């Protein structure tokens, strides 16, 4: 579960099928469970008009067979979000009125896909989100601007500039990331022990 937080942080809901001509579903890892539940409760014509983009990440094959059994109109299993991105952009570029977007899984996945969808002109009202699985965070270093994916520990070391950063709750939808700030800025070298805050 996600802990309670501050107003810049998105609030996630539970996916529900809404009438549409195309249902674009983007999910990673345990987000597959949200798809399976959505499909189970939706009318049969949902899957006939569904394009599922799924990135298993650390769950490997665990959910892939069950997604295949759903037999959606299109199912794509991607090696990573970056690998899936050209396809996602192509789908969004060809989207017409009546597109419904469903995002499920980690905050990093949902945040980035949300950004793509809104930049493609999809209204917020046509995008749903459901958080599942890891609470690991995507964090931008405020100093060097590099983004570190799947941050589980706080403080952590920036993958780009190497500074030790603490993870704020302040969240930017435009960057789809939380903010990381040098923890020993006022006392260089005094770095507290890193603890697992996000699983």
């Amino acid at each position, binding site marked *: 579960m996600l802990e309670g937080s501050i107003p810049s942080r998105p609030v996630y809901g539970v996916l529900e099928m809404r009438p549409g001509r195309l249902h674009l579903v983007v999910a990673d890892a345990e987000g597959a469970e949200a798809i399976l539940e959505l499909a189970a409760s939706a009318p049969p014509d949902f899957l006939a008009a569904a394009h599922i983009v799924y990135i298993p990440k650390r769950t490997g094959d665990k959910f892939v067979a069950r997604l295949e059994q759903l037999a959606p109109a299109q199912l794509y299993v991607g090696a990573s979000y970056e690998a899936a991105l050209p396809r996602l952009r192509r789908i969004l570029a060809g989207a017409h009125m009546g597109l419904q977007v469903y995002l499920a899984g980690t905050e990093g996945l949902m945040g980035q896909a949300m950004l793509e969808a809104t930049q493609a002109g999809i209204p917020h009202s046509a995008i749903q989100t459901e958080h599942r699985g890891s609470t690991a965070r995507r964090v931008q270093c*405020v100093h060097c601007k590099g983004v570190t994916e799947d941050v589980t520990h706080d403080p952590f070391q920036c993958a780009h500039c190497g500074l030790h950063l603490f993870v704020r709750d302040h969240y*930017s939808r435009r960057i789809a990331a939380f903010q990381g700030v*040098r923890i020993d800025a*006022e*006392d260089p070298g005094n770095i507290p022990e890193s603890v697992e805050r996000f699983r």
Partner: protein
Amino acid sequence: MTIIFKEETFHDDFTFRNSPEAVKRFPFPFPEDSYMYSVNLEPHKSYRPGSVYERTFDVDEHYVSEMRDRARVLAEDPLRCQSLPHMTLAGWDLLELIMTSKAQEYPELFELHRDGAKWHWINRPLGIEQKFTFLDETTLPYGPMEYITRQTQGDFALLDQRDDNLWMDAGMVTTQADWSLDFDIGMNFFEWHAPVPKAHEMGIFQRALKFLLNVQQGSPARRLNWTMTVNPLLDTSPENYHKWGVMKRDLTLENMGQMMHLRVELQTFFRLPRSNALVFPIRCYLIKLDELVTVPKWARRFHRVIRDLPTELATYKGFITNRPKIVEWLSRYDDGAPTPPGIWPD
């Protein structure tokens, strides 16, 4: 009125100083001996000749050096000035507001000649002369917001108004109290204030937003905010926190008067005519504690405010570690005498 513009720096050797005249007009932000958040908004009307409230955009002795510091910061980090594509018109609105105000209120420093869309701008202190076509971006060396805010003291946030909210969709931010335009751009009023403790629960932001959504053209508003800064750094950005944060360690009772500064923001709010955007200038004034205690009323009051400030606020404002030292130093200037209400020197 003649302003003698000072040659000074806000980095490295920190030669910034206030003249005795600048100290007298400093916007001391405490009308009483204690402080808590409030929606302290009032009309931005000309008030008290010589004070920072007299003119629409105050120009003071630090103008030229502050503009040089802005250029330095922008050269290091261009992300401090950004404008989302739909905000260009608001940028022109802002350029017009600043140029017409300054030309009217400081005729010996600034001139604006307009012949339809053909404009001719003269900025004497910075040695700038520019002929351009209003609303034609190709006739200026920068976008309109960047062009005019490179010539105007204070940070600027341009806020788009839609969905009953304000969205920070453009800005020039090089003199900020530890917030990042690059991170916050595109956020709404509640989102960019999210890290501020207590104020959300107190309903401060709901009330402030309601007020700001109703600011009308020609009726600007203002308020003061404050924090404390070690060394006269205009640029206390999160981006550079790993460079200036360490300076807090160097503070001692001996260097306190020269090194510690009260940092006051004069925040104003103007409705813009074409875009219906709101511009939010945030003008930073710095004063050394040595300068501040030359006004006995301010010395007594500032000691009491800092001593009694709730821990959460002292932490948020970044001086909790140094507070005992600051209070000890200030206590020498507080004899316990009562202070008259109001922010003015006496």
